[in-house]
């Protein structure tokens, strides 16, 4: 029961919390009734409009989420097949027969097939799984709810964005059926190899153009939504950190992807119109002089590609950091430590990410002056990353932490991202990079950032926001099995890569380094890594069961089961209303992380939109407002 102290303002009236809640429920009931009546009298929203070509940001977010999770599983299975080959090069495996006679005759994987799987694993994981999941799914579903907006700024564009992503994925998958197979030049598609590759590479480029268009439409939409549609009182410095992370991510997508699109157009011209943008004069292929005009520059592709792909790394990690911040603040029941420095760090990180790209190219012979410049900027960009990680770590200090499944994933993210980030420093220094470049060390480094880093954050986010989306909670026991199994196995897969890399084993080898006499001691770990990968797969099964099972049979929960402060929990039902999200437009009173405020004794959390205090209006325009009253106050 609420004490008489606590009152809310509704329109011009002050009400006790209980009465306000009744009013809110009544408002929701009337709204739903109106919607039902509208459905009877006008026309029923067709199945296609509602579930296929939906313009509701929540449903589009779910579409993105389901599609991206399927691609995540698919990309993961490609890797499982590669790991079979690496554990026992040239061995016949029954399961490899699914690749077909052209790729794995008699169950023995061909080198060409290995290259195809490698290229497609990278492409699918980065462009079709992680980015759509982190930005398309979480961003779409949560950003409008967190800032108190009825939808995205351009709902139709949002739909178009998903429907560019989907065919992009279909084109990529379809390339498996093309003669000569899929793209096989790695996810980086370096020319001249990619220029002279089989037609799968053209499909890859076509797919990429769809995906780039999708991300362009999405990023414009996110930026306009965050700038224009923040609810009353939601100033920039009151936005949850997750929204900040999505904001900076969208700028990166907006400005970094077009150079890759330009590069894609040039490569497409090279392949289709036989130009020589990336083909130097006098190139000899299979003992034959290539019959092209020449005069091109393969390194130009690398510049254009990495101008996208380095910011892309931050596109992968920033939304993950946003998710982790929300979960840590909620489960430590404390404000985030250093919110302002977090915001400053993420903005600085965004700017710096545009001037570090050539640290991927130290070995192209671009000269020591340029190398020195890029290694300096690379060292500088590690500062804001460390600021973010430190702030999150400091947030744990002195808290009585709730160790639920999302929090476990969030806590594991910190050291895993730490390992991934710190092992990047030797790669960013030109001298040490000479030894480490293109070895398994690089693979270990970025997989630590993306797999136990970003993917763990995605899992954390799914467990955390599942009750908001479905109204039901996921099973804690299955969640913990999933977590502990994944944590152990994923380290079993990736940690030995550092050892292999330091021993000098190159990446992208069909035999996993068997031919290297000097690295035999490290080569042997391949069996262990492959076993870990397959057991890791087994530990995803509880998650899949949990995900679908909880949708139907999970424990029903209220609108705010985690007792969180941000708008998506406090001001909406679970799941939120189909249209417009909020029964009453929330007016934001304070920052996003008011946990355990000593001046507020009612509960240990104070939602962003709740007005506390005396019946006199403490701040003009505060409180819960109806749509009409909110509109009146606008003008």
């Amino acid at each position, binding site marked *: 029961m609420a004490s008489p102290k606590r009152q809310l303002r509704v329109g011009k009236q002050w009400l006790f919390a209980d009465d306000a809640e009744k009013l809110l429920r009544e408002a929701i009931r009337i709204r739903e009734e109106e919607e039902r009546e509208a459905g009877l009298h006008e026309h029923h929203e067709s199945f296609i409009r509602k579930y296929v070509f939906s313009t509701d940001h929540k449903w589009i977010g779910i579409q993105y989420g389901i599609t991206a999770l399927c691609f995540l599983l698919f990309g993961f299975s490609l890797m499982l097949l590669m790991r079979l080959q690496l554990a026992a090069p040239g061995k016949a495996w029954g399961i490899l027969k699914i690749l077909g006679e052209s790729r794995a005759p008699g169950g023995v994987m061909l080198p060409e097939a290995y290259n195809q799987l490698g290229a497609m694993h990278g492409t699918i994981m980065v462009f079709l799984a992680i980015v759509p999941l982190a930005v398309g799914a979480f961003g779409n579903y949560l950003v409008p709810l967190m800032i108190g907006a*009825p939808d995205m700024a351009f709902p139709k564009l949002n739909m178009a964005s998903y429907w560019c992503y989907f065919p992009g994925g279909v084109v990529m998958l379809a390339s498996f059926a093309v003669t000569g197979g899929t793209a096989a030049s790695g996810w980086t598609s370096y020319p001249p190899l990619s220029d002279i590759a089989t037609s799968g590479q053209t499909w890859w480029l076509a797919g990429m153009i769809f995906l780039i268009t999708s991300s362009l439409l999405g990023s414009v939409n996110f930026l306009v939504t965050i700038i224009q549609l923040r609810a009353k009182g939601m100033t920039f410095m009151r936005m949850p950190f997750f929204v900040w992370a999505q904001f900076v991510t969208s700028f990166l997508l907006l400005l970094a992807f077009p150079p890759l699109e330009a590069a894609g157009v040039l490569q497409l011209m090279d392949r289709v*119109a036989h*130009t020589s943008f990336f083909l130097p004069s006098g190139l000899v292929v299979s003992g034959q002089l290539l019959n092209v005009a020449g005069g091109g520059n393969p390194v130009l592709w690398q510049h254009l590609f990495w101008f996208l792909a380095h910011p892309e790394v931050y596109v992968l990690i920033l939304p993950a950091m946003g998710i982790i911040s929300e979960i840590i603040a909620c489960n430590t029941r404390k404000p985030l430590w250093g919110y302002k420095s977090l915001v400053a760090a993420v903005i600085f990180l965004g700017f710096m990410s545009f001037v570090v790209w050539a640290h991927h190219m130290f070995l192209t012979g671009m000269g020591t002056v340029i190398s020195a410049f890029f290694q300096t900027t690379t060292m500088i960009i590690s500062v804001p990353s460390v600021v973010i990680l430190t702030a999150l770590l400091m947030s744990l200090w002195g808290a009585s932490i709730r160790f639920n499944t999302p929090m476990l994933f969030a806590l594991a993210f910190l050291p895993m991202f730490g390992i991934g980030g710190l092992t990047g420093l030797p790669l960013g220094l030109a001298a040490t990079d000479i030894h480490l470049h293109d070895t398994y060390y690089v693979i270990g480094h970025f997989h630590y950032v993306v797999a136990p880093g970003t993917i763990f954050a995605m899992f954390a986010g799914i467990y955390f926001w599942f009750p908001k989306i479905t109204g039901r909670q996921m099973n804690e026991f299955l969640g913990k099995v999933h977590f502990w199994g994944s944590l152990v196995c994923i380290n079993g897969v990736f940690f030995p890569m550092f050892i292999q890399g330091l021993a000098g084993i190159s990446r992208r080898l069909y035999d996993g380094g068997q031919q290297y006499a000097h690295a035999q001691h490290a080569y042997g770990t391949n069996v262990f890594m492959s076993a870990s990968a397959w057991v890791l797969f087994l530990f995803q099964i509880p998650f899949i069961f949990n995900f679908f099972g909880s949708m139907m049979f999970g424990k029903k929960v209220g609108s705010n089961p985690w007792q969180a402060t941000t708008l998506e929990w406090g001001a909406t039902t679970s799941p939120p209303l189909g249209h417009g999200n909020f029964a009453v437009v929330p007016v934001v009173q304070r920052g996003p992380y008011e946990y355990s405020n000593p001046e507020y004794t009612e509960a240990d959390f104070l939602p962003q939109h709740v007005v506390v205090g005396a019946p006199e209006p403490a701040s003009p325009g505060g409180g819960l407002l109806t749509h009409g009253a909110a509109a009146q106050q606008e003008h």
Partner: protein
Amino acid sequence: MHIEIPYNVSPRPDTGLYNAKLGIWLFLASEVMLFGALFSSLILIRSGAAHWPHGYEEGLNIPLATLNTLVLISSSVTVVLAWANLRLGNLKKGRMYLGFTLLCALGFMVIKGIEYTDKFKLGHLPSTNNFYAIYFTMTGLHGLHVLGGMIVFGYLIGPGAKMWDTERARYTNRIEVAGLYWHFVDLVWIFLFPILYLL
């Protein structure tokens, strides 16, 4: 059910922009990066080439290109006049100026088509050398942008103009947004013309 998106038509007081106007500026920022990357590629390939042919030596038609520049600049003026007339509430004149804009765009494409045909007749293809490769790629991509603009203007003159009766301010905004895009397409040509033909 219809939901109202705030600031769809009228500007948000603290940003001074309506949604679509901010959206188009952001989109143009990304377009700057797209063409910026292509211009950078041109610089890199040209500076690395032992011999780089000049546009006028290669037989690019400078008089026609100059005419095209004038055509495109005129269309940028007419699109502003269209918007101004719509702001004054004059649909008839506004539509007329939009028609001029569309006509200019069509003229540009026809002239560009003549230039392309001349080159093909002489056997100059993108594969001939990197000068023609970059010439066809960049003018081609610019041409696609002109084509996109033509589709938008065609829609706004024709079926899209119905909005004038129901949501006048929103229709006028659409012309403004399309106009901003059109100025950008114009500006890209202003860069392409000297770099490919004159320098």
